């Protein structure tokens, strides 16, 4: 992109040519009241690949993720400064429709949070809300979303049953299906596996690999092995700053910054 003044490790990014920039973040600052939670973050997120954000608890990675679909707006006394562009369009401009933005940038949360409704109604919620489909079309859309989330085979006979009857891993995939039903371009995942067992975690990771063919994925994770497994590029956050950003292979094997090295080798965090 033109005129980017970001401190990226611009070398050795695999596949740069094929993946256009989806989200550009420039000089992003975020404040909870007087506390500065993000300090001058600059970052490029490429489309149709997985970008991982790592760092110790409270380092600002979740805050950063939530800045990308303006979920921080609902926090009282919070303030965002800087630029976040989605396909070149500034998302913090006063004229931006947050509803439209969130349709394009969906979110999966740390704990599975299905609605207190049936499996079907969970997935149909957003399409109904936005008037995307009804009747047979809606049923098709729900099925397709559940298939994309690799959940259809497990739930096709219990669509009318409560979403709470599903296992934790299934609930999380249901939440992913719920997001996909809106037809987003970007899926933000905030530690999507931290409440899941290893087998469910593996399923979600496999799912992410399938999803990246169609969606841009940003995942925040505590689990460095996970970041190394799934992502092409990784950013390391510490105390609200993006310390280092680059190819995951580099970040995990040969980081440029001493702090990154200390973190990925398990010396703290």
């Amino acid at each position, binding site marked *: 992109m033109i005129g980017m003044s970001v401190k990226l490790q611009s070398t050795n990014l695999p596949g740069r040519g094929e993946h256009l920039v989806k989200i550009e973040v420039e000089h992003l600052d975020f404040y909870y009241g007087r506390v500065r939670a993000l300090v001058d973050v600059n970052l490029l997120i490429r489309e149709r690949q997985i970008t991982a954000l790592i760092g110790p608890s409270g380092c600002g990675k979740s805050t950063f993720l939530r800045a990308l679909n303006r979920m921080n707006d*609902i926090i009282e006394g919070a303030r965002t400064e800087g630029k976040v562009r989605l396909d070149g369009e500034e998302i913090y401009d006063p004229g931006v429709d947050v509803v439209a933005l969130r349709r394009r940038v969906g979110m999966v949360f740390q704990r599975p949070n299905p609605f207190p409704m049936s499996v079907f109604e969970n997935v149909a919620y957003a399409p109904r809300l936005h008037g995307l489909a009804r009747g047979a079309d809606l049923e098709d859309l729900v099925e397709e979303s559940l298939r994309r989330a690799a959940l259809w085979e497990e739930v096709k006979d219990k669509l009318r049953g409560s979403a709470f009857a599903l296992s934790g891993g299934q609930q999380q995939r249901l939440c992913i299906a719920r997001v996909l039903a809106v037809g987003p371009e970007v899926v933000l995942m905030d530690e999507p596996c931290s409440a899941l067992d290893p087998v469910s975690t593996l399923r979600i990771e496999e799912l992410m690999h399938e999803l990246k063919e169609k969606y841009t994925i940003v995942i925040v994770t505590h689990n460095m092995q996970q970041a190394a497994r799934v992502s092409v590029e990784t950013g390391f956050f510490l105390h609200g700053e993006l310390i280092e950003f680059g190819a995951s292979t580099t970040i995990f094997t040969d980081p440029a910054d001493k702090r990154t090295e200390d973190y990925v080798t398990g010396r703290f965090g």
Partner: protein
Amino acid sequence: MSAGAMRGSGLRHLRRKAANGAMWGLATLSIFACLLPLGLVLYYVIAQGAAGINLDFFTKLPKPVGEPGGGMANAIAGSLVLVGLASLVGLPIGILGGIYLAEFGKGRFAWTVRFLADVLSGVPSIVVGIFIWAMVVVPTHRLSGLAGGAALGVMMIPTVMRTTEELVRLVPMSLREASLSLGATHWRTVLKVVLVAAKGGVVTGVLLAVSRIAGEAAPLLLTAGGSSFWATRIDQPMPSLPVQIFTYAIQPYDDWHRQAWAAALVLVSLVFVLSVAARYATRGRFRMVR
């Protein structure tokens, strides 16, 4: 205590055991002290009221003094209409107010509203009756079902509002976030997700409020009045079970006393049915907590 495994026969040990036993006994006693009046009330109402219950009671109008028979069909219908009117007033205001307090209510104004709601729920019902009498009955020059419904509705508001608030507050933030992140507005989120999640509890609160006002006589004496006829218009005085019980109970006629007891039994049954319905409603299919 298993015998002698650990030797604990000292004085302190005995004292602890005695204190434990004594407190346990007191607690048990309190339960019976609490259940006894409840049991007696139920026993008395059933024992005295059952004699007056027959088909006529539910289908016939009251007879003049001295004439045997007759029923309280008009009072039963009147009570239902009054409760319905009260719900029309109390439920929308109470539920929407509760949502406001839980979702948007911050700062001094919300604090004041909460405080006033608590005060209002503590106001004696006769005072609410006088208030509506002054506001509605005096200007319109007549006791009416409308005034009665308004009085009962005002009494419902604080209970419904605070219950709704508490239950809406209990809905986890993560559900709101999920809905918002799917592009729903705050209001849609409240309507489609938060209220659905809180539904069972809100219904319980509403039914408890309804049960409470269904038995009120004092405010109705000043607002709806009473009548021995079918109340077909809500701008006319309207009979109700509590007022009918009061009217009949203070008269010196055995026949009327019997009918008053029967009315009390019907009222208690009505409240009982509502409570059971409340339990049933909370037993929802999509429970948040398993």
